[in-house]
């Protein structure tokens, strides 16, 4: 703390006016108790609200989930409606998001951590990435609308699976890059030194030693990023994902409605198909006035949350493998 010369003068500070010091411990401990209670209550409130939300959704929707609900297309009659169109849309969008965002994000992370020094370009990218992470997701939707739906229409086919997936891929790219860099930083330098000392090029060292060591950490980050993308609604509404989709992307019009091999058999049908996803189906059902549709929404929320919990458990398993000391 700065000390000005006047503080050093011998005149004593004016303590005489202030009341004599009284410990008053009883009142002070009382205040302490109140404060601790408030902190405890705040935590309880947050968890109680979460529990309220989950119980309410379960209560409303659990009875609605059956095989018919999982395998039916949307319908004007709530009891006939189902989520197969949204499930297939989410499935395809997430596959393509992963295929696009994984190599690009990891490559960008590799470039920043392994292939470049500390120069103006890397610093620019770093600032840029932290800024991108703060951009509202709906703005990415506007970018996707202008760039992927309109500008690249001959490739994407307009308001399609591909346009939606590319938009979401851009959205989660900053998360994957940051996670990749963290994982790469966790790999001890001695491994790189040893590889380089053996005469390997940087890429040989990275591909044979650093990447395998960092892989589970990277995968954890990618899965967490995908679990963010799977719940995103706003950007896909903005690029014009449909709210009523009585078909699935690809060339499997009948049961089981979607087949991963469609990506090889009829890639254009899959990529350029109009689509909907789970959150948009939920949004659509919430905004209907009938109560029965709200139950459908709750049931679809349960399915979505189960998918999220599954992805997060996978991430936790991978993370625990990552944290195990290397042999």
């Amino acid at each position, binding site marked *: 703390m700065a000390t000005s010369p006047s503080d050093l003068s011998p005149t004593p500070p004016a303590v005489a006016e202030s009341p004599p010091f009284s410990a008053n411990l009883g009142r002070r401990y009382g205040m302490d108790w109140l*404060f601790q209670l408030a902190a405890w209550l705040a935590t309880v409130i947050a968890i109680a609200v979460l529990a309220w939300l989950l119980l309410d959704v379960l209560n409303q929707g659990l009875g609605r989930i059956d095989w018919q609900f999982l395998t039916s297309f949307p319908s004007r009659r709530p009891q006939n409606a189902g989520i197969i169109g949204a499930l297939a849309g989410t499935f395809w969008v997430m596959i393509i998001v992963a295929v696009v965002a994984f190599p690009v994000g990891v490559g960008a992370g590799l470039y920043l951590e392994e292939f470049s020094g500390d120069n103006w370009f890397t610093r620019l990218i770093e600032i840029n990435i932290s800024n991108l992470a703060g951009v509202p997701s709906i703005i990415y939707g506007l970018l996707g609308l202008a760039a992927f739906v309109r500008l690249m229409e001959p490739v994407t086919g307009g308001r399609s699976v591909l346009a939606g997936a590319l938009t979401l891929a851009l959205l989660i790219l900053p998360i994957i890059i940051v996670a990749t860099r963290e994982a790469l930083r966790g790999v001890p330098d001695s491994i790189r030194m040893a590889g380089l000392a053996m005469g390997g090029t940087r890429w040989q060292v990275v591909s044979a030693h650093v990447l395998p060591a960092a892989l589970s950490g990277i995968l954890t980050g990618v899965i967490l990023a995908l679990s963010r993308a799977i719940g995103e609604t706003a950007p896909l509404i903005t690029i014009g994902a449909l709210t009523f989709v009585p078909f699935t992307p690809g060339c499997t019009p009948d049961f089981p409605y979607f087949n991963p091999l469609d990506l090889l058999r009829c890639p254009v049908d899959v990529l350029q198909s109009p689509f909907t996803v789970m959150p948009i189906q939920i949004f659509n059902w919430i905004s209907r006035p009938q109560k029965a549709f709200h139950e459908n929404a709750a049931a679809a929320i349960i399915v979505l949350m189960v998918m999220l919990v599954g992805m997060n458990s996978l991430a936790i398993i991978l993370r625990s493998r990552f944290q195990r000391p290397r042999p």
Partner: protein
Amino acid sequence: MTVKPTTSSPQASLWQPNRRRSRRIEGLVRALCFVFAAISILTTLGIVLTLIFETFDLFFDPFFRQALWVHRLPTMLPNASPAELQALGDQIQALDPKQLASQASRVGLDPPSRLAGFFYALRRFFTDTRWTPLFQNPNFGIFVLVSATLLTSAIALLVAIPLGLLIAIFLSEYAAPRVRQVLKPVLELIAGVPSVVFGYFALLTVTPFLQGWIPPLQGFNALSAGLVLGISITPLVASLSEDAINAVPQDLRQGAFAMGATKRETIQAVVLPAALSGIVASIILAASRAIGETMIVSLAAGQNPQPIDASLSFINPFIPVMTMTAFIVQVSLGDAPFGSLAYKTIFAVGMSLFVMTLGLNILSYWFVRRFREKYE
């Protein structure tokens, strides 16, 4: 491994690195990774250019030129009767916007310049008190949407700041390590809930619940949207503030205890001030998140822009309002054709949203750098 007899020299079976090939592969990979890293810059550029381009396209739209033209008629023709002005105004608005200059002779008056139309549009954007861009007689007062966004965000912060801060204090100062280990993932769970689920909760659970206590509360309202929005950003405030509080060195706390301060006094007088920059930054980031949040507010807060006037309906939390993000969602669901006024308007709204969140993000970054206390 068996060594096959070879006709060449014995060195052939030894390791012979193809250094040139390795270098070439390395160069290729390096270039590819560079391109991937540059994509993040292209994304930013794409966002900024898209928003600027479409916003300018809106402000240069002939609609505003025609509107300015009608607006200027009384000064151009001071002697005309109101009926004549009305007829002339209708005639101007009926002109084909694409050929304003060539058709001006039909009216017999010069149209305003394109630049004048641009500045008129800018003025309308910032001074109109209504937001009705899809009506026959549109108004473009962006502050109608901004006020609704600020209203829901303010309610959200009123929830998230005390809750988030107290949770951060509880986790870092009071909770036993084992309790903390259980509670932290549970709180992270809140951050992982998709916003559309919070929207369901706000509209179909919280609003009916609150209506039992507050009878004038309407089905769509800013209050329950703001409250649930606050819960959804609480983990952000809590985890960033907890990081800031954990960064305060233990010596400071022990110094305060040695002076006879109680735990609460230590936290309030020593720990919180020392962590202030991080805490404020977390609050600013949470505000930025609240402003950009879409699904909760478009589901639960409604689609009714409230005019900015003396009735103060635009700050009434019990009635439906329309935030910036809700407007973008409304137009997107309506499938606005490319190039239409509505299509361009969502980019202008997006631009305003982007500027606000970017400003807040930069502010929080600056705040941390400017006011961070460094302890060695």
